[in-house]
């Protein structure tokens, strides 16, 4: 019978199927960070258990780490916030105790979990990957089954190498056609969320297929899979093709020599068969997608940069209308105001959605030889990992940002969730390349607008949103 990519990944990892529909799925890779792991390690200790397979786990601190060079200079002990310090230190201690490989705070391989996994080859095609973070689906770009789990599940996977799961339904998001110039993977995924809504993918494993994804780079595919959760899907994925294989080749933990050939032969199977059944199919024409800007407090509240802020008066559904009114109030926006009239106070280029080298290059391209608008208080560029940072510096991109008045930081989650010192002030508008625009996400009272790296960079220069396609 013809199978989908998800069916194949599921079948390949099924250890046990119960009559009640729940199953045990074998987990190949477990990525761990400092926020959702301490209680899990504690649980293991309390029960006198050890991780089932230490070599399946890779850890790195990211959520809490400071991103200024000054605060980073002294490693863990230099972290000024005492709660963050304890969390990072605890991860170090736990990894040391259990013998888990950790890229510690100033290790050049440290970075955001979902950036580090693929770039080191720790996450590979055909794998099952979990991490105590909802954006784990990023790894699905490799043709793997990857999703976020809770703290009890972190402990469960450590102790048993398995996850208790129920099989999800299959959804195909098919984007054909050609993307216009200046339209990026971030715009594609925002357009998808705008179309299906934040609950559109609930209960589904979401495969991204069609010409647009076939032609997209691996890093772009990661940006798209990263935000599957914002469309309600716990897992997002793209079938393995030559782009996948070329990306993985030569990475630190990727197979070499004979094993490489053997692995590639297996990985090529991780595609949906012709005629495989999807429970739901959504089709979008790639040529219609324009640069996107979110205007509200949910990732589905997004329009194109050419549009105006929507008017709640034209919404018939009373619940939605109320949500819109509330969002406009929180965001301090007027209905029907052009998107390009929204001024930005801060700019954040980073996060597991958009902090890879292609993202950094795209932003640098826009600001090259220009100056940040005086009205923009701060524009920070936070590379996703030490490797991204080193690569960008080797290409001189850091200098381009600094010359343009932007700040070049140390790797971490940073202003994506404001657990460290990088925060928005109340009422401030931020052009952000991150993935969530919830109330208070980037700081109490902060107003987030989700955009692509190029759009964020352009806003930093102009001081308000502009259409990057015509910005020169």
């Amino acid at each position: 019978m013809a199978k989908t990519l998800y069916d194949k990944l599921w079948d390949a990892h099924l250890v046990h199927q119960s009559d009640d529909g729940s199953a045990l799925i074998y987990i190949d890779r477990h990525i761990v960070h400092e926020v959702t792991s301490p209680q899990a390690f504690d649980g293991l200790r309390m029960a006198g258990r050890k991780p089932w397979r230490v070599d399946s786990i890779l850890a790195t601190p990211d959520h809490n780490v400071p991103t200024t060079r000054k605060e980073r200079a002294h490693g863990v002990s230099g972290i000024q916030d005492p709660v963050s310090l304890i969390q990072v230190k605890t991860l170090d201690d736990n990894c040391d105790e259990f013998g888990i490989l950790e890229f510690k705070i100033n290790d050049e391989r440290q970075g955001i979990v979902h950036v580090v996994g693929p770039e080191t080859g720790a996450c590979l095609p055909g794998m099952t990957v979990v991490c105590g973070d909802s954006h784990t689906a990023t790894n699905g770009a490799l043709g793997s089954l990857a999703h976020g789990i809770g703290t009890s599940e972190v402990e469960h996977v450590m102790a048993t190498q398995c996850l208790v799961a129920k099989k999800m339904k299959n959804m195909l998001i098919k984007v054909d056609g050609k993307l216009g110039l200046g339209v990026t993977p971030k715009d594609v995924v925002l357009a998808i969320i705008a179309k299906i809504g934040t609950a559109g993918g609930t209960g589904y494993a979401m495969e991204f297929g069609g010409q647009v994804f076939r032609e997209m780079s691996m890093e772009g595919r990661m940006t798209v899979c990263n935000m599957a959760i914002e469309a309600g899907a716990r897992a997002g994925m793209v079938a393995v093709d030559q782009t996948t294989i070329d990306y993985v080749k030569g990475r630190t933990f990727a197979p070499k020599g004979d094993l490489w050939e053997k692995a590639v032969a297996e990985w090529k199977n991780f595609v949906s068969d012709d005629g495989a059944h999807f429970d739901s199919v959504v089709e979008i024409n790639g040529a219609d997608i324009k640069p996107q800007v979110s205007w509200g407090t949910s990732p589905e509240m997004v329009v194109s940069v050419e549009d105006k802020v929507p008017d709640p008066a034209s919404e018939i559904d009373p619940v939605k209308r109320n949500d819109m009114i509330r969002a406009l109030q929180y965001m301090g926006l007027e209905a029907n105001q052009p998107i390009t009239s929204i001024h930005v106070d801060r700019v954040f280029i980073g996060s597991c959605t958009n902090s890879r080298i292609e993202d950094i290059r795209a932003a640098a391209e826009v600001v090259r030889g220009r100056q940040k608008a005086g009205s923009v208080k701060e524009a920070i560029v936070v590379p996703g990992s030490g490797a991204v940072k080193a690569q960008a510096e080797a290409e001189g991109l850091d200098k381009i940002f600094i010359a343009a008045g932007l700040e070049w930081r140390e790797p971490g989650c940073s202003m994506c969730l404001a657990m460290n010192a990088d925060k928005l002030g109340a009422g401030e508008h931020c052009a952000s390349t991150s993935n969530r625009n919830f109330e208070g996400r980037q700081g109490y009272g902060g107003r987030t607008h989700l955009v692509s790296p190029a759009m964020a960079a352009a806003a930093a220069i102009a001081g308000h949103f502009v259409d990057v396609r015509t910005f020169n």
Partner: protein
Amino acid sequence: MKSFTVIQGIAAPMDRANVDTDMIIPKQFLKSIKRTGFGKNLFDELRYLDEGKPDQSCEGRPINTGFPLNFPRYKDASILLARENFGCGSSREHAPWALDDYGFRSVIAPSFADIFFNNCFKNGLLPIILSEEIVDRLFKEMYATEGYQLTVDLAAQTVTTPSGDSFGFEIDAFRKHCLLNGLDDIGLTLEHADKIRAYETRRRAEAPWLFDVVK
């Protein structure tokens, strides 16, 4: 998870309805990186007269001598007698963590909030529902007798008083099985350890690149 078979212990009162999880463990303690150590801050706002801060030693803090858990006679209590809708409010798993860490193994009440009730089972804590009438009687007997002990027998599904009166309670068969055998999800999964190992052995042969690389 600890198994639960028979517990005999001092009963202590939490004599008010609608005790919420914020009362059980206030929000400032959620920043902790641990699942243990919440016991000293259980009912923090009722037990102490000052405002509790995370990571602070509770020794030397001013004690609310009017709060029953601070009475010498309830020292070492392991069964909490409570009123209706115990554990309402926030879903924090820190609430059962705190009760357990303090030393409670069972909470007896006429009714519980749903999420709290579920969270208890994940942590080896047995919530028992008895009728309002019986709970009231237990309260009265407890107040009248210093050193009042109850016996909870999970296998027999009974709560027995010092005078030998026994009251039956209901419990879901699956949960009973898990508690009796100390099986949490992890314990249950490990019942399939042979299958997991067999899967692993097969994959080691088929796909060796998945093993022993990250270390």
